[in-house]
């Protein structure tokens, strides 16, 4: 299925974990941060973000805690856990290796 957000498949979890390394964020902020860091190149759909966050919660990679948004709304902030940090390293390594391999193929041609 083509994705409209420009995200390569399977990378959303890694990106979410990555933006959380700087500190706990709530759902909207995570989406904003990904867009901002990618210079609006990548955007995360809410329809993908929230199920992905549930997956991170189930896996124990993040923990949710109640907080208040900038607009004064009660929200949940997601904080990276030690397991999440490990998972991020693992996924980053994997991604870099794959991406270098793809680059090598693309440049050779």
């Amino acid at each position: 299925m083509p994705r409209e957000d420009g995200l390569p498949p399977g990378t959303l979890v890694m990106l979410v974990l990555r933006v959380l390394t700087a500190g706990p964020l709530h759902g909207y902020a995570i989406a904003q941060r990904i867009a901002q860091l990618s210079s609006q190149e990548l955007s995360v759909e809410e329809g993908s973000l929230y199920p992905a966050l549930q997956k991170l919660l189930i896996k124990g990679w993040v923990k949710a805690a109640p907080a208040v948004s900038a607009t004064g709304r009660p929200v949940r902030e997601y904080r990276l856990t030690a397991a999440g940090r490990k998972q991020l390293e693992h996924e980053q390594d994997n991604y870099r290796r794959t991406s270098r391999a793809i680059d090598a193929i693309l440049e050779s041609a």
Partner: protein
Amino acid sequence: MSRPGEWFRRLGYLLTRRRVDEALRQEMEAHREMLDEPARFGNARRLREDAHDAWGWRWLDDLSRDVRFALRTLRRSPGFTIAAVSTLALAIGANLAIFTLIDRVVLHPLAVPDPAHLVTFQRTIQLRAGPRPQLWMTWEDAKDLRTLRTPVSLALSSTSNDRASRAIALDTGSGDTLSVPGRFISANFFRVLGLRPALGRDFVDADDQLTASAVAILSDRGWRTRFAADASIVGRTIRVNNVLVLIVGVLPTTFAGIDLGAPTPEIYLPLMTASRLADIGGAQTDGRGRPWTGSGPGSGLVSSISPVVNVMGIARVTAGTTARLQAELSTHGPFANWTVVRVADTMLPFGSWPEIRQFVGLLATAVALTLLIGCANLAGLLLARAEARRTELSVRAALGASRTRLARQVAVEAALLAAAGGAAAWMLDRGLGRMLAPFVLPGGIPISALPATSLPRLFGITLGLVVLVAAIIAIAPATLAMSRRLSLDLKRRGGGSSRLGLARGLVGVQVAIGVVLTFSASLFIQSLSNALATDVGFQRDGLVSATLAMPRTNQMFGSEALDALAAKIRELPDVSAASVGPLPLVQGSDFTYTDLRADGARVDSTAPIDVVYAAADYFTTLGQPLVRGRDFDDRDRPNGRPVMIVNDAAARLLWSTGTDPLEHHVTISRVGRSTDYAVIGVTQDVRLKTLRDANRPVLYLCRPQHAVYLSGFMAGAGQASLIVRTSRDASAIASSLRATASAAGFSLTDVTTISQAIDTLVMPQRLGRALLTLLGVTAIVLTVVGMYGLVAAVVARQKKEIGIRMALGAKPRAIVRSVLTKTSAPLLTGIAAGAAFAWWGGHLADRFMYGIRGANPVTMTIAIVLVASAGLAAAWLPTRRALRVNPIETLRVD
């Protein structure tokens, strides 16, 4: 990530989902507000559902929806629900009762930890009738056994028929003394078994000393029957044979002793206190019927202070020690021919196992068939309900519900019914247990003597049955829901494709099982009435018997004491005759002999011949006629010529046909002594030990001529039986019998009529009849319901066709014929299949039948006629409705 952690978080979500979902909702709301164009945020509800599904609890939501829906559906048709649940409750309950019984008698008769490593010692003795295992050893042997080098802890228990075990008279404080079954055990007995008392404490070594103060542990049975399960029993003092005894503990309910053939022990007492506690009365004997003289086997130091003669040794072994123990035993002098066997394998009476297995198998088959017929019936009803909901199912299928989803919904309804049936059966279980309790299994094992099934096992069996039932009854309606043609149904509404094949099959199964169960029930009913009507060879009406306990005295007492008592009892009003001697069918005979000579010629008989000690008035009291010669009387003096009365069967065995046995001679050799008897009379054959003993040879000896020998024997047994012929019933005469006996120094227990004794004898048949009649009636009712449902469905389906045919002038007979052709196939095939199965299985019941064979054409005809007429009657009502079909009305529909 660890999976348990994941599951833990998922579970945490399930428990707090309301709060979490609400937090998520607010978060999404905030997210939407912060967007530049809030409209871009997708369908919030959909997003929440997706997020929710990520936690993997979707199936649970669906399930709870299905359950709520099924509950609503079931509540809407209470009649159906009640009928279904009670059918299942009965079917599951009957299975529960029988499978618990199997568990109690076959699978877990010994409810102790690790029963496989509990062993006892057995030797095989050669009898004329074949080899026979013997589990008891003398007290002397047991002492010797304790010197074994193999490290096992050995426990000892007096055997069930040791005179000390049978001489425990209990006074619970009410002033009434009861003779109760008990055992004298070594202090480590329960420790070796691995049992801890449920209340109070176990015996300690200090309890098992000659001078220790007397203590007792009650079995669960003793605690319940004698002390009404009094929770504060520990610490109470009771009297055992007039000695004060302190109750220190009560055993758990799952332990019923290590010998299921004997009455369940109610009280356990330390072995070394036996000399003070056991009231063995009479003279000391060596336990083999010979007066104890202070020398010879079994008469060492210990037996002179302990009345316990025969003990069983029990040891707990580890996996490796069994072989070592066996090896050491074979080199251990007197134990050379003993083997180490598992206790669990010795608990049933010798030789009773095949009969028990067959009987229990028969009951299990009957209840399993009942479960099957109940399931077939319910599957039919559920199928009919699914048919009625066809349109609803079709619409839902058309709207995109998956077939599995629809099937699951139908299956949930079936599962709910099964669960409700199981729950009801669980509640019924106590009642059914009480129903079975008074019965006795073949081999003389009272069901009440079996250990209780442990609760987890009972639950496991129930759950297993519920799952099985749910699976069976869900299949038919679920197949319908899975049907690919469901979507087609919308196009041709009203007609509906025919699922009658399945319904017919289900009715066929019900009819077949109906025939089998009705057949078995009528076999048992006929057999029992045959058994009760058996001519036992003596007059059973007006005969009362009682157990006569010997007076506690160290004096030898002669046969004349017994005859004097009989004479006193004869003088009582309403008593026409009385005597002391074994009651046929209850005590059977006194001895069996194998070494016989008739007029000097050796008698070659494979079976041992029974010998009964009788005295004057014995035959008169029994109402057992003499066909030749005379009865024992004053002429037969103790030192006079030894005389004998034989029965017809014995006469036929000992002499050629046509010989008059009178004044012929029989020589009996025993313990190196030969006695020559002159035959003075011939009596009619009686059923001596079982109702089947039609031609059993019996020799009757004159008791007064065996006085010395006999007193030893009776003191050893501790009891004899008094028989009384009276015009009144047992309970009316009991008190005057007791008073007369106690004036003469005897005590009487168990005053019963011979009819009650015969009742006990045919207990397995009674159990079979009671259970099979219940199941047979259930089967017939279910068959009727099933048949009715099928015919009604056929008529409903063909309403239009019938209307048209009637409008065109078809005769009612033709309509009836067409309905019956469509419905009689399952009835006929079911009857044929059921009859074939019942005929084939009939031989299984043979062993338990009296005067009737399992494969019995008359019984078979009865069963077939019953089921066929019930089936036709069930078909009649809906068929008549078919004839009332109004052509105009049916055609107007649609």
